[in-house]
């Protein structure tokens, strides 16, 4: 018996060399996780109830089917380390420079030109409870990928004002015991909403000027819409079929945000005039830790008058357009952590 707060999570900050080749200890970090659940492994059996010839309708035998791995959420307060990691593994095209701190410039990979086609980088996920000779849990899941993420910013004190969570998928391949000695828990350089140094959406600056102090909250999200990865030769684990690839489908990038309504609010005009512009969000903690997300061309799909905690607000749904020159989205993260997605 063990309390779940003994659960230790580690995962690859470096990418696996292949979907079936686990990260080594050198490229695995250990982080805390606001999601308190372990990542469940779900082998599925099937039976013969649908087959005639048995003399009755009841099942008589079990057959191994596949590993039906649920998605798993890594939920963190936003930090330079976790944002660099999440963006790199979910978007795919990464350039790194520097010798400490390191700056990662990241854009969504294109299927036509990505060296690994429709597949993103893979990482391994380690979960342990009392590892050692009598471990309650000690396993490494191999071939994990980021299905999607959500970045939330809101008016509130402390770390909860800037949250980042990732939905991850796994093939079903694992090794137990993991053979990994997890390092000490990392101390990420976290951001909060007070560290936002740029917040401009479609020509409206929400930090200074007439629309300063009007911002309430924002949710940005990315979804890779992976296709199922079962195919001939995809592999087995314990006699159960596992997935051998995660290929992105129609990816989706969504942004919704809320601002206070005021005399002269220009959001309605931007919607009606179909005005488009960049959207830039920057966190700056110090010279070693910063994050900038630039949406290259954004318009407004819906602007709805609403009520947020008693304040008249506008709830705005953005439309992120693909710019022919600069693409859809560019993320730049500076962090002390080397080797992310390398």
């Amino acid at each position, binding site marked *: 018996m063990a309390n779940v707060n003994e659960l230790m999570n580690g995962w690859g900050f470096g990418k696996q060399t292949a979907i079936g080749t686990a990260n080594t200890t050198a490229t695995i970090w250990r982080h805390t996780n606001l999601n308190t659940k372990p990542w469940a492994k779900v082998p599925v059996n099937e039976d013969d109830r649908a087959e005639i010839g048995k003399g009755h309708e009841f099942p008589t035998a079990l057959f191994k089917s596949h590993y039906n791995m649920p998605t798993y959420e890594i939920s963190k307060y936003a930090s330079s380390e976790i944002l660099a990691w999440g963006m790199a593994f979910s978007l795919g095209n990464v350039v790194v420079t520097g010798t400490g701190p390191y700056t990662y410039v990241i*854009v969504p990979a294109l299927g036509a030109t990505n060296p690994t086609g429709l597949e993103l980088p893979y990482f391994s996920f380690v979960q342990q409870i009392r590892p050692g000779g009598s471990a309650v849990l000690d396993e490494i899941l191999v071939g994990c990928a980021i299905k999607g993420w959500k970045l939330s910013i809101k008016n509130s004190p402390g770390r909860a004002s800037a949250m980042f969570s990732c939905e991850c998928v796994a093939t079903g391949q694992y090794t137990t015991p993991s053979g990994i000695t997890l390092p000490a828990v990392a101390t990420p350089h976290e951001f909060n909403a007070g560290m936002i140094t740029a917040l401009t959406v479609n020509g409206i600056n929400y930090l200074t000027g007439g629309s300063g102090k009007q911002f309430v909250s924002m949710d940005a999200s990315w979804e890779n819409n992976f296709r199922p990865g079962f195919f001939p030769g995809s592999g087995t684990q314990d006699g159960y079929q596992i997935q051998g690839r995660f290929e992105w489908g129609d990816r989706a990038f969504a942004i919704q945000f809320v601002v206070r309504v005021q005399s002269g609010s220009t959001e309605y005009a931007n919607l009606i005039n179909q005005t488009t512009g960049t959207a830039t969000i920057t966190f700056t903690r110090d010279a070693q830790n910063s994050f900038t997300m630039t949406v290259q061309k954004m318009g407004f799909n819906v602007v709805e008058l609403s009520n947020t905690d008693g304040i008249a607000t506008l709830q705005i749904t953005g439309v992120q357009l693909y710019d022919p020159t600069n693409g859809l989205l560019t993320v730049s993260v500076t962090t002390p952590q080397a080797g992310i997605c390398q």
Partner: protein
Amino acid sequence: MAAQLVFLESPQGDEIKEVEATPEKLSPLLSQGWHQVPAPAKHETVVLAPKEDK
């Protein structure tokens, strides 16, 4: 401080370019499918000095 330089390879794999590692310079290339590669074995970074007016 001068921007750092990185090597990018074209989507077709037939060209390697040395580029300033700024989001403004990288975005158009990365969005077209250029990706980072290690520095070529033999390369020389030439900094062109501006011509003096005669």
